[in-house]
């Protein structure tokens, strides 16, 4: 490495960039679920779904064809024995129609509707040690059964107006999601009992439910050495269990084939991805080349519960282009001209051929017109052993664009 290299390397190494949070959302969306039980799937998933709606895939533009015979461009050569004639397609302006039906999905700060089981109740005996959940449970049970409860209307006479005690819950009502319970009043010493077992202290608590169904939440307040409680129930929902079906619409005039994907029930929000392509909705169409592919599906129920699935799909057929790597322009009636077979099936295409030696343009066409070896703008003809470079830009009948380049040898 010389001094120039060292300076350039030092410069490049000192470049600083700040993290792109949008990229994290996209990356996160494509990762497997967390392994730990009870863990939550980050709310930014929804950001990922929204981000997918703006997905636009593209690649750099081709040089134009109309700059005349003397146009010189930087050409890349492909060793002829290694030339892959049917190159892996690139995407250009291939937009996916996205259904914008994810906006209504619950967010982490979504306020959950709780069912009030019992308004403010005054407990007869102060609870000094709430870590003893059994004791609390017994007292709660007594209260529920009316054994240990004061006449509430009696005990609250004169007090009810003074005591403001309530709580709310925010989050997503799904198993393994965190729900945040918080008192609406901050001036009391509070304790929480969830399902009669889990005890927390403080003005708020976070809890992840592992079972679907109704769950009981009690908030206890110590007010002037008297204990009061508020009891509510919260409903927790299961993850969705979608059923995927798919079909492949085969076409010989398109490079890629259309995979029609659908998932039931339609009430969920669905986000699909196949390699770099993404689409949202219960019925989507994703294009893919021939071969076996894995389609990832994220289903989000109306309650915000998430399930991820993988579906393997097999695609076959499609438009293929065969490009000879040599021809013999000697007018012997055999292989006298060069052309890429299959291009004629494209909706549009352009072909440029350059001399390898000086990279000058020697032939170009937008029509089915095989090259006979004549050098554009001159009376010259390709000589035996001369190498040329071709660059083809084609658009199939589905609007998919593909660029191919390689070498031709005149024999």
């Amino acid at each position, binding site marked *: 490495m*010389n*001094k120039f290299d060292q300076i350039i390397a030092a410069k490049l190494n000192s470049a600083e960039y700040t993290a*792109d949070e949008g990229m994290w959302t996209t990356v996160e969306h494509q990762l497997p679920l967390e392994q730990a039980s009870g863990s939550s799937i980050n709310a930014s998933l929804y950001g990922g779904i929204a981000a997918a709606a703006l997905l636009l895939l593209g690649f750099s533009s081709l040089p134009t064809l109309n700059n005349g015979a003397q146009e010189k461009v930087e050409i890349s050569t*492909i060793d002829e024995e290694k030339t892959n004639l049917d190159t892996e397609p690139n995407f250009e302006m291939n937009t996916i129609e996205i259904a914008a039906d994810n906006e209504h999905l619950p967010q982490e700060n979504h306020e959950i509707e709780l069912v009030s089981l019992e308004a403010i109740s005054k407990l007869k005996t102060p609870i000094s040690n709430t870590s003893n959940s059994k004791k609390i449970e017994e007292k709660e049970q007594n209260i529920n059964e009316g054994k240990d409860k004061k006449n509430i209307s009696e005990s609250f006479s004169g007090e009810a107006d003074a005591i403001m005690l309530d709580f709310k819950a925010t989050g997503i009502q799904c198993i393994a999601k965190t729900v945040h319970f918080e008192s609406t009043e901050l001036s009391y010493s509070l304790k929480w009992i969830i399902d009669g077992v889990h005890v927390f202290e403080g003005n708020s608590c976070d809890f992840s439910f592992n079972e679907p169904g109704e769950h009981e939440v009690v908030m206890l307040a110590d007010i002037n050495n008297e204990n009061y409680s508020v009891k509510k129930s919260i409903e927790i929902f299961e993850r969705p269990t979608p059923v995927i079906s798919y079909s492949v619409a085969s076409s010989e005039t398109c490079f890629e084939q259309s995979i029609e994907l659908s998932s039931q029930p339609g009430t969920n929000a669905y986000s699909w991805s196949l390699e770099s392509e993404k689409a949202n909705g219960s019925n989507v169409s994703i294009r893919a080349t021939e071969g076996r592919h894995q389609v990832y599906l994220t289903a989000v129920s109306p309650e915000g519960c998430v399930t991820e699935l993988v579906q393997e799909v097999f695609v076959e057929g499609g438009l293929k282009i065969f490009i000879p790597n040599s021809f013999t322009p000697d007018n012997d009636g055999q292989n006298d001209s060069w052309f890429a077979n299959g291009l004629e099936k494209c909706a549009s295409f352009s072909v440029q051929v350059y001399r*390898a030696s000086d990279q000058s343009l020697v032939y170009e066409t937008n029509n089915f017109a095989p090259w006979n070896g004549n050098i554009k703008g001159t009376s010259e003809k390709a000589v035996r052993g001369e190498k040329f470079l071709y660059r083809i830009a084609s658009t199939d009948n589905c609007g998919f664009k593909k660029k191919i380049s390689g070498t031709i040898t005149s024999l």
Partner: protein
Amino acid sequence: MQLVEGCIKQSRKAQKEVFSKLYGRLFSICMRYADDPDEAKDILQNGFIKVFKGIGNYKGDGSFEGWIKRIVVNTAIDNYRRKKVKPVITDSELTDRVGGMTAEEEVSESIYNQVPINVVTDAVQQLSPAYRTVFNLYVMEGHNHNEIAEMLDISVGTSKSNLSKARLNLRKILQPLVDRLSQH
């Protein structure tokens, strides 16, 4: 190691921490291999997905960051291969120049220290993918020409040629600015 364990468990918190911690360094690598920032982002995004999905392959040999960097560089090379862009025809004259530099040239090199970082990055991105990839693998990643030839499926001569042309083109691209800097 906690981060690694967290990533193995697919912990979003651990993954996010790795993402945030290494984004800057990894993105600068991708910028060197890409035509533009958008392509660099695509490479890095695919790299991160490969890292987090393939975390089970990390055996603890060498640093975790080094392992991630290798994956990102390999992703950039895969991206280059996908574009099917191959090196230009070898120019033997230029190949012969590789590594050769006079004392005068060495002294004048210091002017490049004054070139802003973003200008250098832009200049590298203006190189053809074939030149740029060889330049990165040789200068930035420290591979030799035999290794590069194998990695990119090209000849050693082509690797040398492309490195030489990459250097010359970089100089050409930076020349107007270097001239202005020299006058001051």
